[in-house]
């Protein structure tokens, strides 16, 4: 149950710690980093979806005035690398497997020269038969993307918990349908880029706008065949990540080998087109068969899901994403018997990967629609079906996820109220309808090695200000502000007196970075522990100065005093200086660690995947124009359970931003492929929501407390885009009785469905 605690910094509407730099344009993003002698790099990309490289001749390009280095696979170890499976190369070895794959690269004095040089690289290609559809690719005789991957299958999952046959037999009604999700690009307004420098001592220094620095370091070290210590990665300001900047692409690696060969720093920034072709790894697209068995009273008795997921040409994070799509949602409702089958399949397209939601938006697009179908068939209000099945604190999912806090039912109540659901349902107007969906997400996930933790160091400067050293990194979401708040709360100082460092793999301890909605919960716990360590040292020092017992001390607003005797105090600065400037002096500095109580998935994929689970409910009222098929969202409502809200104004931004991406996914965004070649890889034809495209949104946070979280907090970042597409589709069905099963929901599809329905 929710627990009210009084905080002085946590939960306050503080200002962003990095706001000033951003409104003045002073923030240094990757493109703004300029090093002496720096060259600019450009990448030659495969024009074919699948083709053997018979010959590459770079001599003309090398002789062009202004060119300083040309690299091909010959300049690499030809050693494959990857997050889960090592299957991609820095530059094509032998053949290219998708349009946009990196084949060669040039470093030159300016971009125009680099581009001219690319045109002078002569590649002799032998086009090979290619396969673009995951289902086709699984068929016998389909062209093989990787020779050793039979039927192009990268991952197979086949898991049954309970007795699925019996459960369906015991169901009163069965709903069965197929849904198709779509790829989606992150479209961070800043594209991926890197600036790499190589010292003859053998050390690479790479500035990256990555959201996972230490994972990047690990992968880059592996691909270059050097120890991690020889790679230093420094995070620039990051212009948005959403999963797309988690180093599953070759940008930094190409910059690194160009820098080594040229002996000069090299900057490589993706153009927008490159970003679509081969930059960030888009959302995994899936075909999902769902079969649900319901009892008459609305309880879900059985669930069988079968997923075919498109991996693209190489495996980025899709192996983990497929697992999430197959199983995560079983933590949202109370299930007993579930079966899940999933196939991740190689095709000759861009590798797919991590995007806010990580498999959840695809799964929820399918499952939340199937539940809605069930509700309509049973004649039960979808709000009630959700209530009947909603997970609660203490629930353990069939896959072993242990829920320590859950306010899903509270979120349903809030949604019902904010939407005025009952009244709107009662006086339903023609062509308008209501839709609803629930979601669950993790707060961190144990999947990169047996570690789901974080660490941080805090030092107190001589002026009493605290500096957090953290390698997690800020990508725009505001985590640095939340970390400063957590440290300030624990230390008993003002938030203005806490600063946080940039992420730098040489100067900060190992941190996994921004993914899986983990930072507030996991890094927050680490920072809190570090602050607590530092506080003990401060109190130790202050106890000598105040001639009091350290256990009796408290701190507030930067002052340390005996509880109840505020008049007599020492400041944090006094204590820090007194500890430093004396015989045997030492700075006040302390570290803290945290590792969540989660389990690394094994073959059976059983075990608690995260330390805490966050929940949410979304609802929409839409109006459908029967003449054009156009869908207008009249009102949208979101209730989120993220435990204690540490940084309210930032949390609101997460909800609103996630929702906007959800609307883009549902209604607007779509990349078309023609024989594996993206047709609309630019912002003119791949539209993302603009300010005028977003409907009015009302949202609120549940009163919630996560016992294992820092001050009761858990994750939030991804929750808000997970169910949106299903919500819209459910509302369209309620409005006009047609169900759209492929994304995005375009007016053409709605109109076609309406026409077919008659």
């Amino acid at each position, binding site marked *: 149950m929710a627990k009210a605690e009084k905080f002085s910094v946590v939960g306050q509407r503080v200002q962003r710690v990095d706001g000033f730099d951003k409104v003045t344009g002073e923030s240094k993003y990757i493109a703004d980093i300029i090093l002496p002698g720096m060259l600019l790099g450009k990448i030659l990309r495969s024009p074919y979806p699948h083709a053997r490289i018979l010959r590459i001749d770079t001599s003309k390009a090398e002789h062009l005035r202004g060119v300083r280095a040309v690299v091909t696979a010959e300049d690499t170890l030809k050693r494959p690398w990857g997050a889960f499976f090592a299957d991609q190369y820095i530059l094509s070895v032998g053949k290219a497997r998708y349009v946009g794959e990196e084949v060669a690269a040039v470093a030159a004095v300016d971009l125009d020269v680099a581009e001219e040089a690319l045109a002078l690289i002569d590649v002799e290609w032998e086009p090979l038969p290619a396969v673009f559809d995951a289902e086709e690719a699984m068929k016998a005789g389909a062209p093989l993307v990787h020779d050793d991957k039979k039927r192009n299958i990268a991952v197979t999952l086949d898991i049954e918990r309970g007795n699925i046959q019996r459960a369906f037999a015991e169901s009163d009604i069965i709903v069965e349908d197929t849904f198709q999700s779509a790829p989606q690009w992150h479209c961070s307004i800043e594209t991926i880029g890197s600036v790499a420098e190589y010292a003859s001592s053998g050390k690479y220094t790479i500035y990256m706008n990555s959201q996972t620095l230490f994972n990047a370091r690990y992968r880059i070290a592996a691909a270059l065949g050097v120890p991690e210590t020889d790679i230093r990665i420094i995070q620039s300001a990051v212009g948005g990540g959403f999963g797309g900047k988690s180093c599953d692409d070759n940008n930094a690696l190409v910059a690194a080998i160009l820098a080594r060969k040229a002996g000069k720093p090299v900057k490589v920034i993706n153009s927008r087109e490159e970003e679509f072709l081969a930059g960030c790894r888009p959302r995994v697209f899936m075909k999902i068969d769902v079969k649900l068995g319901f009892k008459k009273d609305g309880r879900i008795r059985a669930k069988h899901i079968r997923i075919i997921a498109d991996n693209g040409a190489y495996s980025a994070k899709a192996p983990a994403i497929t697992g999430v799509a197959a199983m995560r949602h079983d933590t949202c409702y109370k299930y007993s018997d579930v079966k899940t089958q999933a196939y991740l399949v190689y095709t000759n397209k861009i590798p797919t990967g991590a995007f806010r939601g990580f498999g959840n938006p695809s799964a929820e697009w399918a499952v939340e629609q199937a539940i809605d179908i069930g509700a309509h068939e049973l004649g039960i209000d979808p709000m009630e079906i959700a209530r009947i099945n909603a997970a609660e604190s203490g629930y353990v999912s069939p896959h072993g996820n242990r829920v320590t806090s859950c306010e899903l039912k509270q979120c349903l109540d809030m949604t019902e109220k904010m939407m005025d659901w009952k009244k709107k349902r009662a006086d339903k107007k023609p062509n308008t309808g209501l839709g609803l969906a629930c979601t669950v997400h993790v707060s961190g996930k144990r999947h990169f090695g047996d570690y789901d933790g974080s660490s941080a160091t805090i030092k107190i400067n001589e002026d009493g200000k605290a500096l957090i050293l953290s390698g997690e990194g800020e990508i725009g979401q505001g985590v640095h502000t939340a970390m400063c708040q957590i440290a300030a709360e624990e230390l008993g100082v003002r938030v203005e007196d806490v600063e946080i460092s940039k992420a730098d793999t040489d100067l900060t301890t190992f941190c996994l970075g921004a993914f899986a909605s983990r930072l507030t919960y996991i890094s927050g716990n680490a920072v809190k522990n570090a602050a607590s360590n530092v506080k003990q040292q401060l109190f130790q020092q202050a106890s000598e100065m105040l001639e009091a017992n350290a256990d009796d001390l408290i701190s507030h607003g930067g002052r340390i005093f005996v509880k109840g005797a505020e008049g007599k105090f020492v400041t944090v600065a006094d204590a820090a200086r007194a500890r430093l400037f004396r015989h045997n002096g030492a700075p006040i500095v302390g570290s803290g660690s945290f590792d969540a109580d989660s389990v690394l998935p094994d073959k059976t994929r059983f075990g608690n995947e995260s330390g805490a689970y966050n929940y949410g409910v979304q609802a929409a009222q839409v109006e459908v124009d029967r003449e054009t098929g156009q869908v207008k969202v009249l009102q949208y409502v979101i209730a989120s359970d993220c435990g204690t809200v540490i940084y309210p104004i930032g949390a609101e931004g997460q909800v609103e931003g996630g929702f906007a991406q959800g609307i883009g996914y549902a209604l607007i965004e779509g990349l078309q492929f023609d024989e594996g070649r993206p047709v609309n890889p630019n912002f003119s034809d791949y539209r993302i929501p603009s300010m005028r495209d977003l409907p009015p949104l009302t949202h609120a946070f549940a009163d919630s407390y996560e016992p294992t979280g820092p001050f009761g907090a858990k994750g939030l970042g991804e929750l808000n885009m997970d169910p949106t597409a299903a919500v819209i589709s459910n509302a369209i069905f309620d409005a006009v009785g047609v169900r759209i099963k492929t994304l995005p929901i375009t007016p053409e*599809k709605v109109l076609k469905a309406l026409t077919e329905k008659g």
Partner: protein
Amino acid sequence: MVKFDYFEPKSVEQACAFLERHADEAKLIAGGTALLIWMRMMLLNPHVVVSLARIPGFDSISFDPKDGLRIKAGARHRDIELDPAVREHYPLLYETFRKVAQPRIRNMGTIGGNLCQGDPLTDPGASLIAMDAEITLTSSKAKRTLPLEKFFVDYYQTDLRPGEILIEIRVPLPARPLGWAHIKFLPRSQEDFATVGVALVLRGNALGKRRRSCAAKRSPMIESGRWRRWPRMKSIPWMTTAAPPITNVT
């Protein structure tokens, strides 16, 4: 992008002379919002770029009740939108130019560039055709005037001849009362190019004699591919089709 030389003639005659001298090598630039994108994509690779931006008066807009509205080709969308005479006498044009992209593009793009680009997805063409606009083109050899409708040939193709410059668009003063509408159908994003654009003008004493409409069509990227059609004038006898009521009457 290719390297090019950049010239800024101070008169239309000079500009024509440049065009004649450099023939195939040269491209005109007005606002540059379209040309620049093509050049970046290497779809156009001119070695000489001739700017119309420094020709005095090339962006003027004038109105005379007898003669109608004369818009010089260098006038920007925003200039036309904000022109008092346009607002008063040509409400359809005001409505149309307000809807061209966003203010930033309207501050840069010119009407001449828009029409000569020959992109049927853009907005002004349909409304200008519906208003019986005619255009004047000139080269160092000859000058000609033709109805705008005749100018548009095909997708990205116009009747602009080598060496020619579009200098002026004239729109006759419409008889009152005037019924009109401009509809820009934007199914995906409000910031998109139109999927379908329709400009409609109704005239005659009782607003009932005849109805004219023209449409620029395109369907969204997703699924069905584009319709790459130019607006064509359709004169439809009034009363023959059931049409929604026309609310804009001035």
